[in-house]
């Protein structure tokens, strides 16, 4: 522990020195690196989980959703929770990249690409997991041939597709100057990768006109992605809030979901930047100062989310309407109370308590808090879906006993873990192919600071 602190002090010192890093040094530091031993183990591990998930999905395609433990009452299970989780995480791309850029915040530059990679990976798996949840996925095209605009699902299809393309572009445009740099290192990249870089980015010459055009495009994307990001998660919350059920019938849902989404998204960026910093020795670029600043934002977001939670639960609990009392008691003191209090305490209250202190905003405690936030958020999404479905208006009667409770089957767990591993795999691969920290922007910003 002491060693770590010393190391971090040195890192801090180095961060101050980073001002003077030469351009070539920056490039050498930030070029994508081949997987080391741990990188290979990590990738293999993710691949194995993905393969298991794919096998489980094959079984689901063959036998139907009967391989899950969803039944007529709990007709949505952890697939939908996981979908909400992915949509939530993907929102961070818009926060770190767009909101900060438009607000002229510069310290976040080294984090933008990490955030965008997470956003793209999450939105891809949000789309996939919603197809996994469909009972007849072979009829997916019906959404386009017979789509009805009055259904919130169609709204979701439209905005998620839009968000996906904007996110891809927001990842791609700022990459172009870096690809120009990458193209200089054919030896290092290897033939296949070099060809790939050449294919996607050789048109970029780095002329002032191109920079001007790209800046303009990125600005437009940053402005558009904010309302789209708000819409994707609001619409996702409306999948629940447009129904009558206790726990879903809430006008608070849109704002509540968005607050939660920004929290889990920033939590995931904290985890990712800690891991990348350690794995690729980026202490000069992702400094303690970044953790410090992001820590303050996470505290703010956690407080905001806690506020919406109080709104969401305190007012109905005060009234204890007959239709809602069984549901609310189930959360506060019944079957779901361990998960409920876990999500509130681990996912919100403890992070706030840790991060309000300066010592709590050091990299390692931040990393732990990030994990707490992300894990708490996943279980929070579980609580949003399942308990409500187990408390319908009419009694759960004339059905087999298995219909009256829900615990996911191994196929559901495998597919869910497979999708989480898949998202991590995409992030891992993107980090292998592209610089995790924007090279060109780092150089430009350093020149501006030195001036």
């Amino acid at each position, binding site marked *: 522990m002491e060693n770590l602190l010393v190391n971090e002090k040195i890192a801090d010192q180095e961060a101050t020195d980073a001002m003077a890093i030469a351009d070539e040094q920056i490039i050498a530091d930030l070029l994508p690196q081949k997987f080391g031993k741990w990188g290979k183990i990590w990738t293999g591990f993710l691949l194995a989980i993905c393969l298991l998930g794919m096998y489980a999905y094959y079984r689901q395609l063959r*036998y*139907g*959703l*009967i391989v*899950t433990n*969803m*039944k*007529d*009452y709990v*007709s*949505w299970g952890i697939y939908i929770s996981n979908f909400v989780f992915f949509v939530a995480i993907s929102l961070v791309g818009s926060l770190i990249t767009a909101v900060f850029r438009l607000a002229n915040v510069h310290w976040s530059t080294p984090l933008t690409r990490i955030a965008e990679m997470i956003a793209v990976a999450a939105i891809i798996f949000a789309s996939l997991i919603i197809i996994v*949840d*469909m*009972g*007849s*996925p072979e*009829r*997916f095209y*019906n*959404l386009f041939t*017979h*789509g*009805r605009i*009055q*259904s*919130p*699902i*169609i709204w979701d*299809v439209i905005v998620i597709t839009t968000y996906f393309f904007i996110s891809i572009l927001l990842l791609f445009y700022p990459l172009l100057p870096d690809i120009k740099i990458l193209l200089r290192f054919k030896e290092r990249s290897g033939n296949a990768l070099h060809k790939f870089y050449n294919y996607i980015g050789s048109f970029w010459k780095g002329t002032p006109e191109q920079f001007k055009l790209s800046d303009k495009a990125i600005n437009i994307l940053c402005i558009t992605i904010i309302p789209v990001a708000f819409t994707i998660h609001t619409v996702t919350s409306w*999948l*629940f809030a*447009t*129904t*009558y*059920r206790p726990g879903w019938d809430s006008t608070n849902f849109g704002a509540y979901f968005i607050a939660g989404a920004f929290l889990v998204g920033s939590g995931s960026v904290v985890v990712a930047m800690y891991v990348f910093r350690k794995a690729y020795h980026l202490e000069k670029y992702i400094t303690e100062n970044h953790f410090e600043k992001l820590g303050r934002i996470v505290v703010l977001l956690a407080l905001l989310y806690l506020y919406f939670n109080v709104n969401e639960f305190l007012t109905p609990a005060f009234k204890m309407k007959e239709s809602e009392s069984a549901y609310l008691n189930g959360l506060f003191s019944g079957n779901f109370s361990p998960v409920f209090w876990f999500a509130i305490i681990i996912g919100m209250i403890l992070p706030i308590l840790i991060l309000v202190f300066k010592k709590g905003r050091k990299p390692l405690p931040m990393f732990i808090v990030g994990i707490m936030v992300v894990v708490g958020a996943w279980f929070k999404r579980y609580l949003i879906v399942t308990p409500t*479905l187990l408390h*319908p*208006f*009419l*009694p*759960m*009667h*004339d*059905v*087999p*006993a298995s219909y009256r409770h829900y615990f996911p089957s191994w196929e559901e767990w495998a597919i869910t873990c497979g999708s989480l591993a898949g998202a991590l795999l995409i992030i891992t691969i993107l980090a292998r192919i592209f610089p995790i920290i924007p090279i060109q922007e780092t150089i430009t910003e350093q020149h501006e600071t030195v001036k």
Partner: protein
Amino acid sequence: MEQENNSRRDFLLTGLVAAGLVAGCTPNKDPFEAGAVEAKASGKKVKLLSVDGEVIEVDEAFLKPVPHMPPVSNTEARLGIPGKKFVMVIDLSRCKNLKKCQSACNHAHDLNPGENWIKVDPMQNADHTAPYWEPTTCMHCDEPPCVKVCPVDATFKRQDGIVLIDSDRCIGCRFCMAACPYSTRVFNWGEPEIPADVAAQPYSAETSIPQKKGTVGKCDFCADMTRMGMLPHCVSACPNGVYAFGDLNEDSVTNGAETFRFSDLIRDKAGYRLMEDLGTKPSVYYLPPVSRNFPFESGLENDKLQNK
């Protein structure tokens, strides 16, 4: 003038009868397909009532049994029967949880074993109020939340008030199940265990047969029966006359044995609908469990079979 009218009628009749004859010769062909074959007159005349209400004479040789109605097309099934507005009245004072309605329904729709479209719930509104049995079907709401949320128009509301499902279009997203406050919808999680010949039939939204893997199912008010002017299976199966079914436009409902003026029944017995506050406007009305025919306890034994 009279002459002309007559000859036109004759022509129409001949055409119809000839079509029937073709159907008789080649049973595999569509009986309504055009194409005339001469039939030899036998000389024996039969008196018939024409569609205009006039008595006419037709040669016996032209008489053929009318073939069964062809299955309705998807478009017709989606439109419904013009001029009708189907309603159901469930008299809670008559129910003793026999579940004959349920078994008749399950049989008629070839439901997957264990699946029930009709559920009979033991209800007790508050601690000290009397318990009663409450059968629930699909409410065929006039403001159906399920139809509102369906992304592909697989579940739809017809002009005669019936809400049906097109299982050939349903994508299995189950949003309708989440939206329905009456929890009436069921899902075919796996391949339904139904006879192979039933499973091989083309799907009809009016019969809801065959149920298909990965799609939603629910009570269809037996739209095929109502098209034939017959009562839904639950109505005719109930020996206690719990269910009455009919047309709101005719202001009449029947349980098979008794026929009631709908408005009188609802007024005299203080009929109501479930969860009126949600604004779903169900087509199913309930009569309160007063002056009951059976004690609540008489239904308990039967309830244990499915609710352990």
